[in-house]
């Protein structure tokens, strides 16, 4: 009898154990290696690293090396893994997960909560590009670098602003009060004199449509036109070499005597005309009398008959103008495939996720 019961219990225990979602039990772990690409020591090291970064920023930084994606698209797989395994801290369930699909040979990063803003599309792409070389064989290196980059990007996002595409655009800033009054179109040339792009400067500030990674490049700027009374094209000088910022000063255009003189003359003329007009009118005092009101015998006015009666009425109408359609103007174009910021989608659990990845490692 006892033998039978024990056997039953064992079978039940085994069955239960099989049914238990082992994956769920691993939810507290930030480093998950299903595939077996890492040694236990490596897993422990990665776990520590990820834990450190996660605690530093209050989000879950997760890395998963998966055998496959259960037949799902990697985007859904990554989102669901994160959502259904209870990852994410705070009410927003903030966190970031790196999924390396060993079967499909692709990697994907998904973000949720605060991390959506911390990691822009450009940021995720950059991280993916950086990790990609490691996936050739150094998976520990990949996760480690991933953790480092998450630290770096989140630090930037919190202390300054999220790393985004504009960091790599040429930016013009015209300094000073006069600088703020300048609107204009400028052409940008590289060190060889080749025209590489244009900048529209609005109230002293402007971005180019040129994307550049080279922080040491030198550019020359020429002014196509300025709409401001405060600077002539030849008065605009480039100061310093162009790195990320180009600073220009606009020399104050000299006082336009022609316009100033013309307006002053006009004002003087009007004043003189009015002044002499008043003086002249003082000379005239003879005026004809229109009525004899002063000679009316006081109280003599007496109304005897009065009749008011209605004759007819006429009605006219005019059509009211209809509201005309107005179309709003379109925005300017952008260079490159990124427009900045983080794009999001909704996962199967209904949560909002950001993300990006690379294929074919």
């Amino acid at each position, binding site marked *: 009898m006892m033998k039978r019961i024990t056997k039953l219990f064992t079978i039940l225990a085994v069955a239960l154990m099989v049914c238990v979602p082992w994956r769920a039990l691993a939810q507290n772990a930030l480093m998950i290696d299903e595939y077996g690409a890492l040694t236990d020591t490596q897993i422990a090291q990665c776990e520590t690293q990820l834990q450190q970064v996660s605690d530093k920023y209050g989000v879950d930084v997760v890395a998963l090396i998966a055998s496959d994606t259960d037949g799902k698209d990697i985007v859904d797989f990554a989102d669901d893994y994160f959502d259904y395994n209870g990852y994410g801290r705070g009410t927003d369930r903030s966190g970031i997960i790196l999924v390396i699909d060993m079967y499909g040979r692709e990697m994907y990063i998904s973000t949720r909560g605060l991390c959506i803003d911390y990691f822009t599309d450009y940021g995720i792409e950059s991280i993916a590009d950086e990790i990609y070389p490691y996936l050739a064989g150094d998976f520990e290196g990949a996760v480690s670098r991933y953790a480092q980059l998450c630290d770096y990007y989140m630090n930037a996002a919190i202390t300054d602003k999220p790393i985004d595409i504009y960091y790599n655009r040429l930016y013009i800033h015209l300094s000073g009060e006069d600088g703020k009054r300048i609107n204009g179109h400028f052409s940008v040339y590289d060190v060889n004199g080749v025209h590489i792009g244009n900048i529209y400067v609005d109230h002293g500030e402007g971005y180019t449509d040129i994307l550049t990674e080279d922080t040491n490049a030198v550019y020359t700027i020429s002014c196509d036109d300025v709409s401001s009374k405060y600077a002539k094209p030849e008065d605009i000088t480039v100061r310093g070499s162009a790195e990320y910022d180009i600073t220009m000063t606009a020399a104050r255009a000299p006082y336009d005597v022609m316009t100033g003189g013309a307006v002053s003359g006009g004002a003087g003329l009007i004043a003189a005309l009015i002044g002499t007009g008043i003086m002249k009118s003082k000379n005239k005092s*003879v005026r004809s009398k229109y009525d004899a009101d002063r000679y009316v015998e006081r109280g003599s006015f007496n109304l005897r008959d009065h009749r008011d009666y209605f004759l007819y009425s006429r009605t006219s109408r005019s059509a009211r103008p209809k509201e005309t359609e107005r179309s709003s103007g379109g925005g300017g174009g952008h260079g490159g495939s990124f427009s900045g910021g983080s794009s999001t989608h909704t996962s199967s659990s209904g949560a909002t996720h950001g993300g990006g990845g690379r294929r074919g490692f």
Partner: protein
Amino acid sequence: MSDELKQYKCPNCGGILVFDSSTQNLKCPYCHSEFDVEMMQSYDKDVAETTDNELSWTSKPQGQWSQSEAANIREYVCKSCGGDIITDETTAASSCPYCGNPVVMVNQFKGSLRPDKVIPFKFSKQQAIERYRKHLTDKPLAPKAFKAEKHMQEIKGVYVPFWMYDADVTARARFTATRVRSWSDRDYNYTETRYYNVFRGGDISFDNVPANGSSKMDTVLMESIEPFDMKQAVDFNMDYLAGYFADKFDISAEESGRKANQRIRNSTASAIQSTVSGYSTVTQAGMNMALVNESASYCLLPVWLLVTTYQGKKYYFAMNGQTGKLVGDLPTDTGLFARSFALIFAVVSALVFVASFLLKLF
């Protein structure tokens, strides 16, 4: 009712109205307006009674000089301007008050109408000069010639002949008035105008409406020194002439009455129109006036007169000898004008220029 109805025209469109037995009203077959019969009769009568008309004065002044008075009058004539002045035998006239040229005494005083009333001079010559001097102080563009002291002494006291009109006026006036109402719906803006006929009849009396009786005195100049207070007028007496000149009238009461009529008409019209209220617009359609108890009297009114010749033209200054009111158009001294203009121009231009430079406006 088979008596022939007068043909009435529709006040709205002018079509001939037709009697509609079902409504007992007059109806217009063109614009379909309807009018009450009694109202149309009243309207028609109002239109007939309010046609504009001209007033005419029928009574004529009758005063005659007595023999003793006539004997003491000296008449002087100015050869250059034809001015005709009379004064008593104690006063000698040397220059014409109208043009400053010498006058010649006429041997025989030709009889003319004797004035009924006179208002004596209240202001002396000194006072007149004083006022004149003060008048010139705020006239920056007046030529220097007008301010010359010696010239101011030339001011002369003249009795100017006036016709004074009294009348009780009965007026009947008709107005077309409208009330306008506007409203809108989704597609249109509507405006409804309702037309009314307004009739008013009333009386108004006028006392001593003055009109200039001398062609030598500019009428507008004389109107400008009004009013004269007739309560201070006294019956005419030769004594008042001593030291002053009186102009003989040469505009008939009839003729100068026309200006008086115009003024009476305007006063009557505005008094009547002020009783019409509650409308968006009021337009006078006609006014008929009748004069009752009209009379015209001949009155001498005191005026201090100064004539100044400047660049070949004569400029007249008149001061009301009773009230002291002073009028006269002055010419503009071109030199002074140019200097003032240039000065203002220079100062203002400079200020604006400096301000715009400092404020970096250009």
